[in-house]
C-alpha cells in the first residue's frame, strides 16, 4: 500500500533549535531513510525549498491572484514529502512517529488505478 508522508514544521521554531538538536533530528531522518531503503519500503522523497519561496495562487474576483508565501495562516508549513510502500496504515503511522520531533506528520494513502468490480 502506497502512502505519502507529509511533514509539517515551524521554520521559526526550527531556526531557534540548538545546533546539536537540529543535527540530531536530521540524523534521525537520514537513518530512517536508510532503514526504509534497506527494507524496500522507501520510494521517493521531495525536500521542499523554504516556505518563503512559495507562491500561493487563488482566484480573486474571477482572476488568479498570486501572493508570496505558503497557503494558510498556520505557522507550520509543509517541509518535505515522502512516498513509501508499506504493509498498511499501522506501519505508516509507526514511520510517521519517528519523524514527530519538531514536526507534525500526516500520512495519506495514494489512490490506486486498479479496482475490483462488485
Amino acid at each position, binding site marked *: 500500500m502506497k502512502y505519502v508522508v507529509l511533514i509539517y514544521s515551524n521554520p521559526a521554531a526550527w531556526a531557534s533549535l540548538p545546533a546539536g538538536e537540529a543535527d540530531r533530528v536530521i540524523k534521525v531522518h537520514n537513518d530512517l531513510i536508510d532503514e526504509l531503503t534497506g527494507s524496500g519500503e*522507501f520510494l521517493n522523497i521531495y525536500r521542499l525549498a523554504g516556505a518563503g519561496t512559495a507562491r500561493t495562487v487563488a482566484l480573486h474576483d474571477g482572476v488568479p491572484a498570486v501572493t508570496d508565501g505558503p497557503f494558510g495562516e498556520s505557522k507550520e508549513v509543509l517541509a518535505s514529502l515522502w512516498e513509501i510502500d508499506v504493509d498498511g496504515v499501522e506501519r505508516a503511522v509507526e514511520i510517521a512517529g519517528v519523524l514527530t520531533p519538531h514536526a507534525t506528520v500526516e500520512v495519506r494513502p495514494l489512490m490506486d488505478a486498479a479496482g475490483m468490480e462488485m
Partner: protein
Amino acid sequence: MSGATQVEELLRELAPQVTGTLVRRYGQFDLCEDAVQEALLAASVQWPETGIPERPRGWLVTVASRRLTDQVRGESARRRREETVAARSPADELVTPGPEADLPAANDDALTLLFLCCHPALSPPSQVALTLRAVGGLTTAQVARAFLVPEATMAQRISRAKQRIKAAGARFAMPPPAERAERLRVVLQVLYLIFNEGYAASSGPDLQRADLTSEAIRLARELHRLLPGDGEVAGLLALMLLTDARRPARTRPDGSLVPLAEQDRSRWDAGAVAEGVALVTGTLARAPLGPYQLQAAIAAVHDEAARAEDTDWRQILVLYELLERVAPSPVVTLNHAVAVAMVRGPRAGLELLATLDGDDRLAGHHRLDAVRAHLLELAGDREAARERYRAAARATTSLPEQRYLESRAARLGP
C-alpha cells in the same frame, strides 16, 4: 511466435529448474539465484540472435555456474552485468556435457524452490517478489514495473528477502511432512495475491501489472501439474480461471467497472469457464473440502448462469455456509450476506451484515458500506443506500471503485 517471445517463454520455464540444480550442487541459494538471473539475461540477449542451443538447460546451468564462480571470486555484480550484455560467444561453445542428467530432479527442484520463496519468515510482498523472480523467471525490472515501484526498491526487497531466508536457516529441501500443509497454504496465498494484483489492475492503465494474472495462472498450472492430487491447488487454479474468464466483460471501454450482474456474459471466455468448471467439479468429488475449492465452486455457479437472473443463489448460499464453517472471515460474511439477501430477501441479508458492526477487522473498510448500500437499495431504502454508497466512495483508495460507487449514489437521486 517471434523468436524473442519464444526465448522468453522457454527461459521462464527453465528458470526454476536451473536455480534448483545450482542450489543442490553448490548450496547458497542467494548467490545461485543471482547467478541464474545473470545467465537468463545473457540468454535473452544471445539466443534470439544465435538461436536456441541444443540443450538450453545445460547451457544455462553452465553459464550460471561460471557466474557463481566469478561471484565467489568477488567480482562486482555491476561489472558482470555489463560483460553479460557485451558477451557474444557462440551458444553451444559454453556447454559442458552432463547437466541433463539432473532432469528427473527438475520437478522436485521447482517445487522446493517455490516453498523456499514463500518462506513464512518473509512478508507477503517479499514472498511475491522473490517468487516472481526466482520461480517465474521475471527480471527485477519487470517485477518492479508490475508493482509500480522503482527498480532499486524492488532489488532491495529481493535481496533482503534472500538474506531473511538465509538468516532463518532455511535449506533447499522440501518442508518436513508435518509442516507441508501449512507451507502449501502460504504458497497458494502468494499465488492468489499475484493473481489479484493483476486482476484488479486490468481495469486500469497498468498493463504490465495486468500481466500478473497470466503469470499467476501459469504458476498455479505448474503447481497443479506437480501436485495433481491436491484439491486446494486444483481449487485455486479453477478459481483463477473462472475469475479471469470474466475479464473481457468487467470493464467498459472507458475503464469503468461493470458489476457482475450487468456484465455481457457473451464476452466471458467460454474455454476458461469450461476448464475451471471441469477442474472444480473433479476435485470436489475426490479431495477434502477447502476454501479455494469452495470459492471456485461459487465462481462456477455464477459463470454457468446464462443470465444474471438465472443464477442459482440457493446453491451459492449453501456454498457460503460451508465456507463460513471451513474458513470464516469477515470478508466471507460480507459475500454470504449478499447470497442471503438474494435467497431470503434484503432485510435478512442486512441482519447478517449487522453482525459485522464493531468488527475491528473491517473498521473503516469501504466494502462493508458498499455491500450495505447494495442491500439497502434492494430493500428500496434509496436515501440510506445513497448515504452508504457515498461513505464507501469516500473510504476507498481505488479510483475505479470510487467512480463506480459515486455513480451508484448518483443514480439514487440528488
